[in-house]
């Protein structure tokens, strides 16, 4: 007994070191596994509050670009409004239920990272505003990411510039699906994988979100085709996609509340249970 105590006292520093190393390595490894949310994130009172203050200063620097984007979006919306083709016929899918399938929460990026392999964005709205895990985040130019963690007033987003992110996307003109990933190299480009070779793809084609995911509605812009590669020994293309968004400069964003999401997930689970 005496010897055990002596051992602990003599090696207290080493034991302390091993304990803390164990804790931090566990946190690291846990954060690298995809399906679990991280324990330590910037969606909390302290870091969220600090980032919000920093962001208030930074916002003034970006007023000009922010205004330009708003003007462009306004112009686009106005052109939609003025060129509305047939006002007597409302869109069919929506008119059945009388509600829009997706609701939108306006939010603001208060911290944005893009220099690591796994990038996260912090937003200044959280559970109190109705933000939940796995909601999609977009802005006027295209998609940005998927909500990861939420706190009462803040939330973190898995950016599309995160090697763990996988988003269902398709070619706008032919409806061939693939999954959108990032190779960790350039902030302006992402990769669309597993596109069948049957698809006719050309440089400059538009890539949009696909309807297979319950996170994003179908047809939100992502980017244009830059290069097309053939994967060895497989019948799939890998497409390098140039993003419409400048991920290094983000301001206001929209969080998409998909109302049909729970219904869809329940339905899919039911069919899965039947199979088993």
């Amino acid at each position, binding site marked *: 007994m005496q010897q055990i105590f002596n051992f602990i006292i003599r090696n207290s520093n080493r034991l302390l070191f091993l304990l803390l190393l164990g804790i931090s390595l566990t946190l690291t490894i846990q954060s690298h596994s995809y399906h679990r949310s991280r324990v*330590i*994130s910037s969606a909390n009172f302290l870091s969220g509050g600090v980032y919000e203050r920093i962001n208030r200063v930074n916002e003034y620097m970006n007023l000009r670009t922010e205004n330009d984007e708003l003007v462009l979006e306004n112009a686009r919306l106005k052109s939609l409004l003025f060129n509305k083709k047939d006002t007597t016929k409302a869109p069919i899918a929506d008119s059945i239920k009388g509600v829009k399938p997706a609701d939108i929460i306006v939010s603001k990026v208060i911290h944005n990272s893009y220099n690591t392999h796994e990038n996260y964005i912090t937003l200044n709205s959280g559970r109190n505003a109705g933000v939940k895990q796995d909601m999609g985040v977009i802005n006027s130019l295209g998609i940005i990411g998927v909500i990861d963690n939420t706190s009462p007033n803040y939330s973190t987003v898995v950016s599309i510039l995160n090697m763990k992110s996988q988003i269902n996307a398709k070619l706008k003109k032919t409806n061939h699906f693939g999954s959108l990933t990032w190779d960790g190299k350039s902030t302006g480009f992402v990769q669309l994988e597993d596109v069948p070779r049957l698809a006719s793809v050309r440089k400059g084609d538009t890539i949009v979100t696909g309807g297979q995911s319950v996170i994003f509605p179908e047809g939100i812009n992502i980017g244009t085709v830059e290069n097309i590669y053939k994967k060895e020994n497989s019948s799939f293309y890998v497409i390098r996609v140039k993003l419409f968004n400048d991920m290094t400069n983000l301001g206001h964003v929209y969080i998409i509340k998909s109302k049909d999401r729970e219904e869809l997930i329940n339905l899919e689970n039911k069919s899965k249970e039947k199979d088993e």
Partner: protein
Amino acid sequence: MSSALLVNIFRFIMLLAIQVVIFNNMNFLGYISPFPYILYIILYPVNSNRSGLIISSFLLGIVMDMFCNSGGIHATACVILAYYRPYIFKFSFGLSYEYQTIKLNESLTPERFSFILVSVLLHHIVLFTLEAFQFKFIFDILLRTLFSSIFTIITSIIIIYIIKPNKR
């Protein structure tokens, strides 16, 4: 004794604050940012409580991870640096370092520079290895370690010369 503690707490908070507010937003060429917050571990008094250093370094790293959304990579790197600090002292200043009064925040001798260099390299290589977490990025890891280390060392030396605490 308590004034040394106060200086350490002050350093802990100030270095974290400037790291989060200024240096985390510096992205040279898109991916190079300096991490001068580890000056806290480098400047910790030589003969002070070692377990205190290990625990406070862990806290320092955890707070950084919270701000960077990076899991536990800063905590791991900081704890490793804090634990191996005496060995780096031995390497840089020779065996009898404990009996000398080492004041890092005075003029920059080759020994002091080599101590900062080795500490920064150790911290950064652990940090970027854990960040990438895959061996196919080995070249990327080395590149980031190299460039970030250069920037960290430059900013650290500038900060040491600007603040110069303990010198009254």
